[in-house]
């Protein structure tokens, strides 16, 4: 190894250690509070959206409004300027944070000569750091949202975009109050703490001079802004002060007031699981309310003081208009900041926004925001934490493909971080990708998993033995960042394709077949877990299917997971090239590995011409979905294995514990296995965890091993003591469950396939 490579290896190794240390610390200090709260919100989302009859329609409507609004944004900015000014307010379009802060500071400190400005919760004001600018100009800033106030007292940053102090326990808040207010007998219960804050903040509100809010949505047709709140502090902030400054990103504009409706129905449900929050303020400022004069409080409340109200709408660009021109980042502007993607995310649930976040924003969508607002280097610090499990996709009320934004940004990070000192020469044969030299070695190793697997299979006995040898693992950890606490997957010496040829191909001739199918030899099944491939052949043939297993290239999932978009696209084109003749011939494409099926059904639309992507998506099936379809269409379940039959090593009792694969759930094929197993008489308990935490290669990486195990913890809690037979479809779920439970689960097809 060259000395340059040695140095690079050491630096990367040190970076990984530092990252692992930071994650470990956050999991220990904040992890429990974050996990409890986010999992609660996530369950609430399922319940609350489940009460909507037209959830999917509403999401489509919301998406349509956002697409239209962002497309017409310059026009809407002009329109809202006119409507707000016609109402008697002022609009300022700020290019960036400094521009916005200068305007706000001049207004508050100079024109108003304000001593105190009170604020309701706003992430956009966090983004521009307006508090610092105001304080520097001598204006006291008071956050009135209880969570934000706690953070202001603690001098900490939000860990969640909706519930900013989610990482702080009740006890920690009590201690904080005791210290800050020098209390011998501090409030302790949630009720006492809230009433303490209500009283303190109530006094600070009374003699405030300026009120600052954000805005969740702004209707261009009337200048009406909508605020989603629960505490009532935004209402007080607006009512109690004569100068109202609303700070909002330009992407908050929608064309009309009527457009608010679907968002009002979706935002609370998607975020914290509330059907609607306590207060939806729809203000067309300056507002008409009289101002309570707390200093001369003997005067009647209802007077003409509303005439003195002043309103300023500060619209923030700060990178957004450039994002709008960026085809991949543009979708970020549809985000309504509901926090669903944070709450649905296994990694976020474990570490929270202090690790999974950038300068301001956190959670999956933060990669888009931070890239557009701060730059790639900020996004690079946390972008790895999106594993592409895709559980945020169905949760997003505006249907943003959040994993794709993370993938694209990862690709840009890869390409921007070219370092000549890399150790590519060592692996050039193993990583024949389309990427520039110099991208992170562990990224490339995983991205080229197909080639590794082929090589491993060819040399299986030696490769498997060497793979887990101590000194080699130490090198793998230092150079490639593969954690030595993980057992590496073994390779089979006879790939599935070779086995199938050797047995003489299909057992059911086309003339006798109900259907013809290509069983896709995904990389994991073909080279490593051949048994589940054999089981799939037995099960399909038992149901009268003519099965073929042609030698086909990988789907491109591993390079995609590493942000190697060009390599993934090339793989998609190759895989489609191999599959297209079969689709042309009317054959179904049956897939065992869910992450590869998700490529065919979902990700390929990014890589293939629309018609090609649609054809393959329509023709491809998850193996359990396919079995389900065959049974529904008259297939005889007697050919499959019911719980009572057999006692061999893969035989199982009636009681099953099933963990559906994250991506399978997202594309809607997670539950077919349950239905098939139940139909055959099994008693199935399904896990309620979004993702096992392994997520492809994520859990193998040194920096993330402990986080990965923590994300899997709920699965251990649910299935650790079970006497049920555990089944799971994904290869990485299998590895993770093996590590968590001490024994490897089988694929559901192995459970139900007739014995050899």
């Amino acid at each position: 190894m060259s000395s340059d490579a040695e140095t690079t290896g050491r630096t990367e190794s040190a970076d990984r250690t530092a990252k692992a240390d930071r994650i470990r610390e956050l999991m220990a200090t904040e992890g429990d509070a974050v996990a409890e709260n986010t999992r609660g919100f996530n369950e609430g989302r399922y319940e609350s959206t489940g009460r909507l009859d037209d959830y999917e329609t509403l999401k489509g409507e919301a998406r349509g409004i956002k697409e239209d609004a962002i497309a017409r944004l310059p026009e809407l900015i002009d329109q809202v300027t006119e409507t707000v000014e016609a109402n008697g307010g002022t609009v300022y379009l700020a290019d960036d944070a400094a521009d916005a802060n200068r305007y706000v500071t001049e207004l508050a400190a100079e024109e108003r000569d304000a001593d105190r400005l009170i604020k309701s919760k706003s992430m956009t004001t966090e983004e521009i750091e307006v508090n610092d600018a105001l304080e520097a100009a001598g204006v006291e800033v008071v956050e009135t949202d209880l969570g934000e106030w706690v953070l202001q007292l603690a001098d900490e940053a939000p860990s969640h975009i909706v519930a900013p102090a989610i990482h702080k326990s009740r006890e920690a808040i009590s201690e904080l109050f005791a210290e800050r207010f020098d209390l011998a007998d501090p409030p302790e219960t949630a009720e006492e703490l809230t009433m303490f804050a209500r009283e303190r903040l109530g006094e600070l509100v009374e003699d405030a001079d300026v009120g600052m809010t954000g805005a969740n949505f702004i209707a261009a047709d009337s200048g009406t802004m909508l605020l989603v709140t629960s505490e009532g502090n935004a209402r007080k902030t607006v009512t109690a002060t004569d100068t109202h400054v609303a700070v909002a990103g330009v992407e908050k504009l929608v064309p009309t007031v009527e457009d608010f409706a679907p968002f009002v129905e979706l935002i609370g449900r998607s975020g914290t699981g509330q059907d609607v929050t306590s207060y939806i303020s729809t203000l067309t400022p300056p507002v008409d309310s009289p101002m309570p004069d707390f200093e001369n409080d003997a005067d009647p409340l209802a007077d003409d003081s509303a005439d003195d109200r002043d309103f300023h709408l500060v619209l923030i660009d700060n990178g957004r208009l450039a994002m709008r021109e960026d085809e991949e980042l543009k979708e970020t502007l549809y985000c309504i900041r509901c926090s669903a993607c944070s709450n649905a995310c296994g990694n976020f649930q474990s570490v929270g926004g202090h690790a999974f976040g950038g300068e301001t924003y956190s959670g999956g969508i933060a990669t888009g925001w931070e890239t557009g607002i701060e730059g790639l280097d900020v996004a690079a610090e946390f972008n790895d934490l999106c594993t592409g499990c895709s559980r945020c996709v169905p949760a997003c009320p505006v249907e943003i493909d959040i994993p794709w934004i993370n993938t694209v940004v990862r690709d840009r990070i890869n390409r921007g971080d070219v370092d000549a000192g890399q150790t590519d020469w060592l692996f050039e044969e193993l990583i024949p990708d389309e990427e520039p030299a110099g991208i992170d070695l562990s990224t490339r190793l995983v991205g080229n998993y197909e080639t590794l697997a082929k090589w491993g299979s060819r040399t299986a006995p030696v490769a498997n033995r060497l793979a887990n040898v101590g000194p080699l693992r130490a090198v793998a950890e230092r150079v490639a960042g593969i954690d030595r606490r993980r057992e590496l997957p073994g390779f089979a010496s006879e790939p599935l394709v070779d086995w199938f040829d050797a047995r003489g191909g299909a057992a059911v001739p086309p003339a006798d077949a109900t259907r013809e199918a290509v069983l896709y030899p995904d990389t994991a099944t073909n080279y490593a877990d051949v048994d589940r491939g054999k089981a799939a052949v037995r099960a399909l043939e038992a149901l009268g299917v003519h099965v073929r297993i042609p030698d086909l290239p990988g789907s491109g999932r591993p390079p995609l997971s590493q942000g190697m978009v060009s390599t993934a696209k090339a793989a998609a084109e190759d895989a489609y090239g191999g599959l297209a003749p079969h689709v042309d011939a009317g054959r179904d494409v049956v897939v065992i590995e869910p992450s590869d099926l998700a490529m065919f059904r979902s990700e390929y639309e990014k890589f293939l011409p629309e018609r090609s992507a649609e054809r393959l998506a329509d023709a491809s099936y998850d193996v359990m979905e396919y079995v389900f379809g065959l049974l529904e269409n008259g297939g005889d379940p007697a050919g499959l294995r019911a719980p009572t039959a057999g006692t061999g090593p893969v035989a199982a009792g009636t009681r099953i514990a099933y963990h559906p694969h994250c991506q399978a759930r997202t594309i809607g094929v997670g539950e077919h296995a349950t239905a098939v197993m139940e139909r055959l008489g099994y008693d199935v308990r399904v896990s309620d965890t979004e993702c096992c935490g392994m997520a492809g290669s994520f859990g193998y990486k040194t920096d993330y091993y402990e986080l990965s195990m923590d994300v899997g913890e709920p699965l251990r809690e649910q299935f650790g003591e079970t006497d049920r037979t555990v089944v799971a479809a994904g290869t990485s779920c299998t590895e993770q469950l093996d590590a968590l439970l001490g024994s490897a689960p089988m694929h559901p097809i192995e459970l139900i396939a007739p014995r050899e």
Partner: protein
Amino acid sequence: MSLADRSTFKRRLDSLGVTVSEGPARACAELVDDAAGDPAVGVPLARGDDESEPAASLPDRVDTDPTTADLRAAHTGVTGASLGVAEYGSVAVEADRAGTEPVSLFVDRHVVVLREADLVPDMPDAFAWLGPRARDESVDVVFATGPSATADMGGLVHGAHGPKEVHVVLLRDDDGADAGGETADGDIATESEATADE
């Protein structure tokens, strides 16, 4: 407004811990008197669109021209609502020049009077109502659903900044036609005497 909307509205309010009392418009003062704590401030109720409807009034003990000091000292604020949204149990409180917003906000209990005729089924109806008024009259409306709430202090607590309790007085419109006669329906019905204490 349909009977289905009324029952949906009441069911939603019940699940939010909001107490409801119902009766004809002429019983309004009595219903409010039962619901309001002491001292109470309020905003005079607007007449409905229908001139033949009886005016709804507030009891004398509700101060309808309060000073800021009265507001600060008040336990209860009584206001009207322009609209109710059945599916969500929401009431539309207008931030008007009469002070509906501060009276409903700077108090421990908000007693809100809603005419059944102003109940709409769902959110799209509410925003179809709001749209023209926002464009033509620049109205400011708060859709309030249940009491003020926070979970920021390690558990759900009502009354973070705004009212800790909400009571809805629903004025039925099926009594307007036979205002002279006492019918079973015309009697005052109180859903629950309990307040929305935690």
